[in-house]
């Protein structure tokens, strides 16, 4: 019974709907409207507005990823020390917000962050100064962290939970205090989760256009906005594809890192 025949539907599907489309992006990116080969679409990244959009996206996504990591790690540590019974409840609590529409959840931050929004109203009644981060890159970072935090928490939490409790006990038994145990045992052993978390946050953050549209006002353009506009408004698919190829460099590096650290093919998310 040749089981490999069974892989045919899936492989066929992957070729048609995953591989070929990506190849088409490369095709469009490397040709101009007449079909001739050109590098201008890719080199267009060097223009002032494009490079600005790219660097801003890189800056904001790095900052968001770092913030997510700093917030997620202590949280995952606390959660992993809880009861075994509560494990699925934890996953539940973090997946649950995803059931409220992504756009609305992000949009809700407008209501919270506005000059006359909820947070400022609360601060005013407490006699504290108001905050003014709506329509700034600060708001975009907030939106990124808000949306992607669960993707950082779950892999790290999974990694930490897999550490045998007796290994931690052994470290303490051998004389390590809390901090030493964290540094020498927990951190190294949770590295797969950390890497997984970083890769699951950085790429969506880098390439988003929705969060910048909803929370940045029309003034702040990230590379994602530029590409989206080329496809839906300007109609210059070649340029859009060319700029996407630049983005792909980041994405491919990301994939390579994941492939190296995730040899078993089991994403550390689940």
């Amino acid at each position, binding site marked *: 019974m040749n089981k490999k025949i069974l892989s045919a539907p899936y492989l066929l599907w992957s070729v048609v709907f995953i591989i070929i489309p990506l190849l088409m992006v490369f095709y469009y990116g490397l040709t101009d409207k007449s079909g001739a080969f050109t590098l201008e679409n890719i080199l267009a990244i060097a223009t002032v507005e494009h490079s600005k959009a790219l660097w801003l996206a890189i800056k904001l996504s790095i900052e968001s990823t770092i913030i997510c990591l700093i917030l997620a790690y202590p949280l995952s540590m606390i959660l992993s020390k809880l009861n075994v019974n509560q494990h699925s409840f934890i996953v539940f609590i973090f997946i649950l917000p995803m059931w409220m529409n992504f756009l609305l959840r992000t949009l809700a931050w407008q209501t919270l962050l506005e000059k006359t929004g909820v947070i400022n109203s609360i601060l005013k009644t407490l006699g504290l100064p108001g905050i003014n981060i709506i329509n700034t890159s600060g708001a975009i970072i907030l939106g990124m962290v808000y949306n992607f935090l669960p993707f950082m928490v779950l892999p790290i939490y999974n990694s930490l939970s897999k550490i045998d409790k007796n290994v931690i*006990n052994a470290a*303490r*038994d*051998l004389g390590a205090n809390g901090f030493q145990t964290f540094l020498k045992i927990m951190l190294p052993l949770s590295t797969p989760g950390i890497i997984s978390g970083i890769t699951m946050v950085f790429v969506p953050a880098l390439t988003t256009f929705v969060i910048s549209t909803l929370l940045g006002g029309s003034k702040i353009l990230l590379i994602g906005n530029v590409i989206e506009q080329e496809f839906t408004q300007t109609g210059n698919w070649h340029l859009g594809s060319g700029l996407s190829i630049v983005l792909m460099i980041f994405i491919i590096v990301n994939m390579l890192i994941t492939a190296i650290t995730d040899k078993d093919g089991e994403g550390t998310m689940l």
Partner: protein
Amino acid sequence: MKKLVDLQNISKSFDGELIIDDLNLYIRENEFLTLLGPSGCGKTTTLRILGGFETPDTGKVIFEGTDITKLPPNKRPLNTVFQKYALFTHMTIAENIAFGLKIKNKSKSYINDKIKYALKLVNLDGYENRMPDSLSGGQQQRIAIARAIVNEPKLLLLDEPLGALDLKLRQDMQYELIRLKNELGITFIYVTHDQEEALTMSDTIVVMNKGYIQQIGTPEKIYNEPENAFVADFIGDSNILPGIMIEDKLVEILGAKFACVDEGFGNNTPVDVVIRPEDVELVAEGQGTIQGVVSHVIFKGVHYEMEVMANGFEWLVQSTKCFHVGTKVGIQVDPFNIQIMNKPASEDEEAIGVDE
């Protein structure tokens, strides 16, 4: 011998269930003491309290005269060998062994010497740069031991360390552990549910059940003179029968009178009687104290194991002589081999059921 550790009035509950109830126990220097009992009897919890991984609800842990009850594990002058080795999989063998020494800021040369010494001690020279995952279970176990003893603790706690090994390896490791203890002069506190292991290795056995200490003694004493039905049943095979102590040195079992050597149980007192299967002598029909018929025979290699139905009780008999099924036999027991025990004072002194 001096007292090294003193556990005073230790009690511990988990989720409302009392695991250890007012435990009092002291351990002497250089002793090999084993906590023996079925799952849930409290032996591992006792060990964890000693190690500092649990805090008792009541009571104190005194180590060489100092109260260490509230001391965290990393500050206690003792080390633990964990059940599933708990090696640091992301470090080499050498780094694993060096871990405790590095925390204590020992010099590089000191550490290197110690690593060599420890590996030699457990017969794993040259394994410095291997990773734990590449080692077999037995090897990992020895590294776990090496990692612990290299810190020169006065006390070593071992939590069922041989459980995951196969029989032959387990037996080899048992001899290894005794050798180590004698060579290093460390006090060992060992936890196991395997009574053969306990009998083989220990100087002192503490039999526990349901959070209480049932009996403390040398292996011979525990085996030959169990104090209650639980201990008798848990250690070795046994025939446990109800009897009546008619007077000193005379007990009635199954309607027949047997001479024995115990005194002080009073007159006409109901008691429990323990007779080990290897102490039941089968003699010709008509001879002996009671009569019976052989119902089962199994060849076990070291001896034949037979069941003899006599006076309404199925006697377990072990003998190098074989009596076939259906043979009528007589049973006699040397008075010295009849052990009299008080009837269980509480549920936890009762023998555990068949599935022990």
